């Protein structure tokens, strides 16, 4: 039986699908479509009715669809170093017109060249695996997929109208993240990561389009200092002016305030959903939040996102009442997962967690995107606070707060090769988690988008070690009780 999907999850999926569909439609109609970093003030773009795509969300989707490697390699072929963030490489390759596509079988009128290495084993009516003449399991042709090759959208678009052009356009991977419109402008706020600055400058130069930049200095203090707020506030005003020039419209204060209200509501509802992880056992798998992040990133200023999170909260409330959970196994241990997931290896990441009854009940995304403000200065301050722009003291405070509230037994740290700033401070944070919370921490090497940087055997050993240390801690606590 197919897995039941709750109304809240369905609504959240629709919100993201609609954002992508609206952008494609806008482009068709000749309207402007922009690309934005995940924590650029979306309220500004909403005030101008602009259609916005989010490259970070797009890259995560492409990586999860297993096309991260071919796109990263495409960026490397363009001259970008493989030490650069995997999201940036995917996005830069895409901006340059590169696309992951199914390999066309030109010997036929239609169809693709199937990769014989893909597919699940073929089973007979009794569920037994069917073997070929060499005694090896046969592949179920229905589950086999084509070879994936690199295409170039600019090259395709330059072709004369005809069957070749049609087929090559169709061959581009059909999922939404591989079909976003090229940008007409870019919105960049480097609060989320300083790598954004060069990434977006490159896109702007590559596509010869305007770049609207908001520079957020790193916060050495617990809260943003007033000088920084003034500096950033001035940039907000400048961004509004640039958007007026770009769109030829006057800034609509009423629309802006409406978007702010919606963003606040989405943030509050997002926090409400995240807080359900405080229940023990939790009514949801913390891995779900990684997927729901797409809504917080792409549609925070939209009413539909706030409504969908409300609906999800209702689903979770129902789970609490019925004693059910979206976690597909009994919750034995609760951990904080630190960092961005390895999107191309999500099933591998989940496997040992499932085998050991580990639920992720804490992630730093809750405070990072669940911010609420009452006026423009508070809004500016809120945009100063992102995982890579707050001081280590603030970052520890955020994480330890969630760990305590969400009652974690251990911490699993992703040393993400793509994210040098985040991984750089993790060793010190890890030390503090153990000292302050008394929980074991395990770190593993991986990457948010490039599968070449993850080793499953190493990851499994570290998870097993963490489980054994959590078990010892649990026995010790039980003995003390």
């Amino acid at each position, binding site marked *: 039986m197919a897995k039941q999907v709750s109304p809240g999850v369905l609504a959240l999926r629709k919100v993201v699908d609609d954002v992508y569909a609206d952008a494609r439609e806008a482009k068709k109609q000749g309207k402007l479509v922009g690309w934005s970093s995940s924590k650029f003030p979306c309220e500004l773009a909403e005030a101008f009715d602009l259609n916005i795509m989010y490259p970070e969300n797009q890259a995560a989707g492409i990586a999860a669809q297993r096309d991260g490697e071919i796109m990263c390699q495409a960026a490397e072929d363009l001259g970008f170093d493989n030490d650069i963030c995997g999201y940036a490489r995917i996005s830069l390759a895409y901006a340059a017109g590169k696309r992951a596509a199914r390999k066309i079988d030109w010997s036929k009128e239609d169809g693709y060249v199937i990769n014989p290495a893909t597919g699940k084993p073929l089973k007979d009516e009794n569920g037994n695996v069917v073997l070929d003449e060499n005694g090896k399991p046969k592949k179920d042709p229905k589950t086999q997929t084509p070879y994936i090759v690199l295409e170039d959208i600019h090259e395709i678009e330059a072709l004369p109208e005809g069957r070749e052009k049609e087929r090559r356009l169709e061959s581009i991977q059909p999922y939404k993240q591989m079909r976003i419109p090229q940008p007409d402008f870019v919105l960049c706020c480097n609060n989320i990561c300083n790598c954004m600055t060069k990434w977006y400058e490159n896109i702007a130069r590559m596509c010869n389009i305007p770049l609207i930049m908001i520079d957020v200095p790193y916060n050495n203090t617990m809260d943003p200092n007033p000088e920084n707020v003034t500096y950033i506030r001035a940039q907000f005003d400048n961004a509004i002016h640039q958007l007026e020039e770009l769109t030829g419209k006057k800034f609509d204060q009423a629309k802006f305030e409406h978007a702010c209200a919606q963003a606040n509501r989405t943030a509050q509802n997002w926090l409400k959903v995240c807080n359900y992880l405080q229940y023990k056992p939790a009514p949801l798998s913390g891995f779900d939040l990684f997927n729901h992040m797409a809504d917080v990133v792409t549609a925070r200023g939209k009413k539909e996102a706030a409504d969908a999170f409300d609906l999800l909260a209702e689903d979770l409330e129902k789970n609490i009442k019925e004693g059910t959970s979206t976690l597909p196994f009994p919750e034995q241990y609760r951990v904080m997962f630190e960092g961005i997931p390895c999107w191309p290896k999500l099933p591998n990441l989940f496997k040992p967690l499932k085998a050991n009854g580990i639920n992720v009940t804490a992630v730093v995304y809750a405070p990072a995107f669940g911010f609420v403000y009452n006026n423009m200065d508070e809004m500016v301050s809120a945009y100063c606070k992102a995982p890579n722009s707050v001081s280590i003291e603030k970052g520890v405070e955020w994480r330890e707060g969630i760990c305590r509230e969400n009652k974690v037994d251990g911490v699993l740290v992703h040393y993400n090769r793509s994210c040098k700033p985040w991984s750089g401070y993790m060793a010190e944070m890890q*030390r503090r988690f153990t000292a302050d919370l008394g929980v074991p921490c395990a*770190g593993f090497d991986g990457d948010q988008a490039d599968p070449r940087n993850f080793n499953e055997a190493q990851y499994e050993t570290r998870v*097993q*070690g963490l489980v*054994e240390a959590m078990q*010892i801690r649990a026995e010790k606590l039980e003995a003390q009780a």
Partner: protein
Amino acid sequence: MSIYTLGIDVGSTASKCIILKDGTEIVGKSLIDVGAGTSGPARAIEAAFESCGMKASDMAYTLATGYGRNSLENIADSQMSELSCHAKGASFLFPDVRTVIDIGGQDVKALHIENGAMVNFQMNDKCAAGTGRFLDVMAKVLEVEVNDLGDLGAQSTKRIAISSTCTVFAESEVISQLSMGTDKRDIINGIHHSVANRVVGLVNRIGVQDRVVMTGGVAQNKGIVAALEEGLGHTVYTSPLTQYNGALGAALFAYQKALRNVNK
């Protein structure tokens, strides 16, 4: 009646077995110089039984550990990580141990121990620098046996630095030192300090507490142990059973599990 348990440690470069009597006395052991994915594990098990004239059916419980632990699902009753097994083995050999350093074929572990149990740990990242494999590569370039590195390094009279952390680049650095006519013994000493520096950083992250014990095959290298002592500022203890430490821990856990089965 005595309870016999078997611990098997299938590492990346060697397979080791320990047979314990009543969780206290080592009655059989074996070591084969090939690890996961080879004939090593099966040969090691056979050799361990031969060493004490026992057979599989005499074992009350068999526990596998190490990189290849999951390949022994048909032989072992259960599996545990080598992290816990090294902690257990070291605590058996040195009951007051608080810090364990294990340098294996392809990873480095620093374990924090409390009352004989591992409460926290740190491991190396994906880079092979600082691991046993790093030393294998260097020994090959220097045309010496890896087992002789310790003695040769001890004869060094001049400290030279091998600064590259990357195994491949360090290899180039060693070749370049050789071509300049640098004494092999000084290069070896430099290599030992290079490995130790990597490991010291890792150990400091969990906090060094006495007693510090080093396990794994690399602990037989006196030069590495001395360089670690220098870097950490603590005495580093080793045991003649160092290579068997993971298997010993596995056999000890196996004994605990066997006892639980008996008491059920």
